[in-house]
């Protein structure tokens, strides 16, 4: 890693001010993706602004609107939260499937969403549940947030503060992990709301996306049978040393069915 300055921010305002001050600064949350990326010199920031000391960014609260989760809440905190397990089990289930225990002890929700790795788990759950991402400047719906491979709608100096996940009637997340990295080779989140079914896919394409024909089928009947004969297109899917596009498309169908089964369980 190249040398950089380390700064521990005392508040979101402090972090935003520092971020806007120039000096090629980047935000540091859990560091589970950023630090390995810096070791590979994929980025060379002049300063890392640590958000870990900002209490207001961390925590889990359930309200009538849904589950409010602070940006620096760790995967382990989400996975182990008893209230979430009762109200919206798909969230702790997905958080518990990320990486390994040590990664879950440090990695954060906000970090995962801001990074938008094409194979990360949280983007699928955020898009599947139709989450709202709150920043220090505005709120962004998940449908508008994920804009491309490692790209989001976040602007310069914008910091995720919390995420609101609406509570579905039922939901499931099924993932086929890459055996080496535990990233999703393919992961599918299926969620049923009064307003309709949402299906989001991670790992398969350049960025998380919705599968509207699967949504329509599940809208008419929420069961595995409703997906009979439906296949996912392999067009524009990732095709690499880990898996071919055809195989990924096949996995999308399998994972979607498993997610429905989990939702119905």
């Amino acid at each position, binding site marked *: *890693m*190249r*040398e*950089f*300055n*380390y700064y*521990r921010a005392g508040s979101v305002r402090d972090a935003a001010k520092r971020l806007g001050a120039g000096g090629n600064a980047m935000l*540091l949350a859990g*560091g*589970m993706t950023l*630090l*390995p990326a*810096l*070791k590979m010199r994929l980025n060379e920031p002049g*300063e*890392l602004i*640590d958000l*870990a000391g900002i209490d207001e960014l961390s925590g889990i609260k359930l309200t009538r609107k849904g589950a409010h989760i602070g940006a620096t809440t760790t995967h*382990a905190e989400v996975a182990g939260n008893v209230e979430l397990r009762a109200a919206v089990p798909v969230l702790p289930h997905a958080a518990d499937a990320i*990486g*390994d*225990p*040590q*990664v879950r*002890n*440090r990695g954060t929700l906000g970090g995962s969403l801001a990074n938008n790795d094409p194979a990360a788990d949280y983007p699928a759950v955020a898009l599947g549940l139709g989450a709202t991402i709150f920043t220090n400047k505005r709120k962004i719906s998940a449908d508008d947030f994920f804009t491309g491979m490692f790209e989001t709608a976040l602007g310069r100096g914008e910091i995720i503060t919390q995420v609101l996940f609406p509570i579905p009637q039922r939901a499931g997340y099924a993932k086929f992990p890459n055996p080496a*990295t*535990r990233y999703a080779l393919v992961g599918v989140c299926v969620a049923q709301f009064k307003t309709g079914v949402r299906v989001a896919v991670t790992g398969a394409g350049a960025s998380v996306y919705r599968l509207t024909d699967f949504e329509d089928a599940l809208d008419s009947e929420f069961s595995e049978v409703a997906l009979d004969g439906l296949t996912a297109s392999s067009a524009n899917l990732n095709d690499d040393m880990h898996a071919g596009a055809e195989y990924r498309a096949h996995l999308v169908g399998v994972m979607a069915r498993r997610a429905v089964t989990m939702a119905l369980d």
Partner: protein
Amino acid sequence: MDATVSFTLNGKNVSAETTGATLLVDLLRNHFGLTGAHVGCDTSQCGACVIHVDGVSVKSCTMLAAQADGCTVETIEGLAANGELHPVQQAFHEHHALQCGFCTPGMIMSAVDLLRRNPRPSEVEVRDWLEGNMCRCTGYHNIVKAVRAAAVAMGEEAS
């Protein structure tokens, strides 16, 4: 760039001058001489560098020394008490859970964290938990056996 970090290290208050980009594992090994945490892969996959920060297991190769400021840090060197091996260390010894020993400090620190959360894990739970700890010579069979034996020993100790 230089800054002072202060934290509790195996029960003692310590301070060190360090730089922003210094990794916690490097500070522990090079400055404090605690070479139990190993740098195996340096890509947060192998788990040979696992230590505890504020009571939970973390990969010290993927944490900055500066992030530990104000924290409580425990390494494998702090595990034995009064000259007696920790039950997990003892169980690794008794069940031949290591050959070369390179992964062992990380395995043990990871297992201690597991047993704090789940005092009687099943075989599946142990194997799931050790997802982030790689062993390339002993194989996991005796490691899993040792962790479960330690759970029994610690349960007897507590009762």
